[in-house]
């Protein structure tokens, strides 16, 4: 029997499988109605969830969540620290960051002298 080809097995079992197909479980309307009721229940639950405010918890937690969570709080704290540092530091020491004075000197020396040369050329025709 173990070496029987599959077609033989199918033939031997065909009558049994046909019988199983011909005797499906009885369809219970109550069961189908219960399934349909579940569907309605899920829809109602979904509508309730959609209507619920999304934020909950303590006021501070809600505030943090509304302004973007810990990432935005960290960014704001870093900005505030930089602002305080800039406010308390003597203006000269900030040149290190900006180099504005040196840039201004360069402009005075070179750019304006070139500009005056061009003006002289125009005047001479």
């Amino acid at each position: 029997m173990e070496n029987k080809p599959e077609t033989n097995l199918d033939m031997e079992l065909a009558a049994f499988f046909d019988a199983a197909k011909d005797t499906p479980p009885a369809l219970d309307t109550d069961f189908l109605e219960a399934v349909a009721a579940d569907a309605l229940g899920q829809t109602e639950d979904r509508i309730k969830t959609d209507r619920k405010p999304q934020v909950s918890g303590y006021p501070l937690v809600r505030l943090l969540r509304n302004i973007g969570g810990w990432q935005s709080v960290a960014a704001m704290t870093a900005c505030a620290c930089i602002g305080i540092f800039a406010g308390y530091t003597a203006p000269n020491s900030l040149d290190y960051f900006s180099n504005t004075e040196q840039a201004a000197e360069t402009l005075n020396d070179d750019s304006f002298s070139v500009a005056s040369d061009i003006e002289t050329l125009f005047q001479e025709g």
Partner: protein
Amino acid sequence: MAYDAMNDVGDDALMVLYANGDQDAARSLTYRHAPRVLALSRRLLADRAEAEDVAQDAMLRLWKIAPKWRQGEAKVSTWLYRVASNLCIDRLRKKKGTNLDDIPEPADDKPSVEAWMLTKDRATALQAAMAQLPVRQRLAVTLRHIEELNNPQIAEIMEISIEAVESLTARGKRTLVGLLLGQKEKLGLE
């Protein structure tokens, strides 16, 4: 709108309609799929009440997933069969063995004639023999030969290769033939 008015509407479209709150779409999906899920569950569990629980649970999961349903990715029927199969396998593993005395008679809602009685007896004999198969063989044989799905569909449901499906069904059928051999005469098959 009656649920049968949506007979021409595809499952994916019905899922979208249901996700948008259309209860007729839900009824249509229920009447289209719940009987098949129930039939599979009953064949695997051999217990009407448990099969109804499983089928209802599988359908409930379908309702829950409806808003996130991705059209064209999986067929609703395949998805439901997979969920129901897994739920049945979980239950069978918890029970560890089915008492053959508990196997219910198949449905008895058709005219009672001699041929019908014979058909019923064959179905009962098959059900009893199927209960002795390992659960995955039982599932593969049921899907292939009673639900009449093809091997690629079964492979998708059981999440195994097509070769594994063929092996499971072949081994299952061999065992069934052995178990039913002695009853063939009594069942009018010799």
